[in-house]
């Protein structure tokens, strides 16, 4: 190792879902020259799926992740709808799936905000680590910590009622769903949903107030002008379950719009880099240098024209007013955007619970069999792509998954580098400084456990390089 170069490793990154590692390279002046978010897990799931019958896939893929199995379940089911030719689901099937999905969004966003992110927001980045955690929240703001688990439970119970199990359910099947929601199953949720709405409003207020109050600091904290990608409904509304792909640039100009996601590969490409298991997606027309983009709550707030539920739409208008209608590129605004979506999801849950189609019995439809199909869904952390080919024997011959955290790979690395450059230098590394790096990663709510699946990539390698790019050390993980 060079005598003038130091490497700082933060491992593991705490309060993100999964395992990650950040490497920061300092130059001879003690300044950050580069920072990278590494992924230390390896899944190889796309290869596991090959050879399995297509109807198993919506259940199998949930093993990708114990955090957002519902998103994988539904994205795979949507893809398999295409395989069985079910282009339009029955109203009961679509609404049951939507209820399941909004419950997943609801519980995931609530848990992230109250238990993972709120310690940073409530106590500040420099607070004692012994306090800056969910235990600290439970002690100082017990009502918030309790709300977090109560909201999580509410969402999980809806997932259980619609999919059969809280984790790794079987409700969505190719062409529809295998169960409806009875009145008896529905009523407890109707009894609780107004309380959930009230807690959503409170959480939104916290996130909004925090962002506005600290705007000066946050605007320059890991923020980067970026492209944004998400599904939007045909009329431009936010739609977390289904729609067409839209991409906008940093100033809001449309890069592509109304794109049928069955042809996503004509618009999105993936780059492989030797130092990470995760791929680096980019908008093909722009190339890898400028075509990277963000997904997730911030991107969805930026790409949609409106939100179709009244309270969330009012919140969206406040959110957009902050940037005078232009896209919001403040990374820490992810939290505010996430809470707007939390409220939207809860409004949709209430709307769906009152819909008698949930008790319908016409649950499955089929059509002309196809050999290839893509399923897309807006998962809590961002757009989730499932792409499959199935042979005449009903076996999967190809699977390609692009998960939310993978889309955000480049912007997360840029955010880490930006924060590291601003806050870490010299020889004194404090917990507060290190935590700022983690804070900016947490804003994206990455789920690192399901983002690594590119079987055939190099094993994890840590390279130590001089500022001019000369390799001076290399370590392989085992």
């Amino acid at each position: 190792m060079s005598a003038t170069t130091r490497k700082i490793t933060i491992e593991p990154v705490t309060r993100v879902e999964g395992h990650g590692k950040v490497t920061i390279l300092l130059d001879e002046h003690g300044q950050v020259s580069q920072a990278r978010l590494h992924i230390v897990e390896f899944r190889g799931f796309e290869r596991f799926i090959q050879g399995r019958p297509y109807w198993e896939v919506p259940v199998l893929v949930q093993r990708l992740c114990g955090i957002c199995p519902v998103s994988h379940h539904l994205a795979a089911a949507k893809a398999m709808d295409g395989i069985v030719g079910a282009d339009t689901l029955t109203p009961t099937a679509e609404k049951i799936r939507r209820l399941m999905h909004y419950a997943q969004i609801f519980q995931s966003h609530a848990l992230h905000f109250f238990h993972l992110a709120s310690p940073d927001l409530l106590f500040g980045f420099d607070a004692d680590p012994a306090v800056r955690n969910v235990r600290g929240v439970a002690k100082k703001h017990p009502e918030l910590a309790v709300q977090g688990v109560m909201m999580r439970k509410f969402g999980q119970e809806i997932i259980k009622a619609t999919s059969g199990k809280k984790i790794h359910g079987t409700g969505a099947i190719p062409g529809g769903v295998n169960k409806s929601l009875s009145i008896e199953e529905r009523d407890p949720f109707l009894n609780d949903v107004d309380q959930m709405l009230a807690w959503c409003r409170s959480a939104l207020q916290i996130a909004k107030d925090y962002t506005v109050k600290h705007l000066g600091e946050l605007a320059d904290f890991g923020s980067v002008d970026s492209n944004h990608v998400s599904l939007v409904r045909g009329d431009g509304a936010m739609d977390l379950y289904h729609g067409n792909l839209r991409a906008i640039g940093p100033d809001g100009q449309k890069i592509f719009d109304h794109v049928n996601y069955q042809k996503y590969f004509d618009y999105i490409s993936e780059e492989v880099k030797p130092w990470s298991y995760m791929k680096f997606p980019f908008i093909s027309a722009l190339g890898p240098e400028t075509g990277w983009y963000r997904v997730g709550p911030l991107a969805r707030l930026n790409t949609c024209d409106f939100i179709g539920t009244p309270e969330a739409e009012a919140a969206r208008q406040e959110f957009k007013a902050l940037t005078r209608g232009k896209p919001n590129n403040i990374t820490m605004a992810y939290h505010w955007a996430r809470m707007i979506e939390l409220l939207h999801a809860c409004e949709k849950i209430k709307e769906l619970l009152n819909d008698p189609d949930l008790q319908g019995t016409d649950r499955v439809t089929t059509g002309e069999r196809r050999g290839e199909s893509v399923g897309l869904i807006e998962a809590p952390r961002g757009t989730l792509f499932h792409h499959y080919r199935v042979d005449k024997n009903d076996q999967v011959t190809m699977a390609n998954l692009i998960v939310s955290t993978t889309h955000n790979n480049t912007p997360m690395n840029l955010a880490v580098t930006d924060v590291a450059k601003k806050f870490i230098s010299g020889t004194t590394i404090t917990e507060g400084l290190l935590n700022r790096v983690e804070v900016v990663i947490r804003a994206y709510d990455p789920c690192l456990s399901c983002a690594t699946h590119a079987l055939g990539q190099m094993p994890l390698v840590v390279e130590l390089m001089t500022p001019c790019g000369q390799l001076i050390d290399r370590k392989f993980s085992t």
Partner: protein
Amino acid sequence: MRKKKKDITILVIGYGNVARLDDGLGPAFAARIQTLKLTDVTADSKSQLTVEDAVTIAQLDYVLFADASVNGPEPFELKALKVPHRGRLGFSTHNLSPAALLGLTRELFGSAPKAYLLQIRGHVFNDFGDKLSKRARANLDAAVEHLTPLLQTGFRHCLDHPPKNASPSLSESS
């Protein structure tokens, strides 16, 4: 919200990955207990313990966590769990240890139920499948036989009356 002592309610939570052979011992135990329909005893199965389980167990008197053991004693081990004063919650919100869950429950709701951890020894984990190995099934049978009377008596005699057989050990753990 908590029930009176005379209304003792026991929840058995069997957790583990049922698609990884003997790792499914915990859910298998919960399923067996559920079929017995014991008074005041309910059973649930999960892949992992998660934070919202705190809401559920906060209302209970007793919880029995059932898990598979990779290298514990045969045929099973039964531990009385202490609520940790402080400790790590674990790395992720979707995978907590029983002790961490108890600690979180007390921090959020002011108290936690009395809890026991049953670890049933498994032998085959490194493959996919939903069948238990022959030795794991035998250990499961032994665990069900031993725990059923304890569950029926609301665990009142658990600590005072350790198992007759030497191998199913009873200890305290936090």
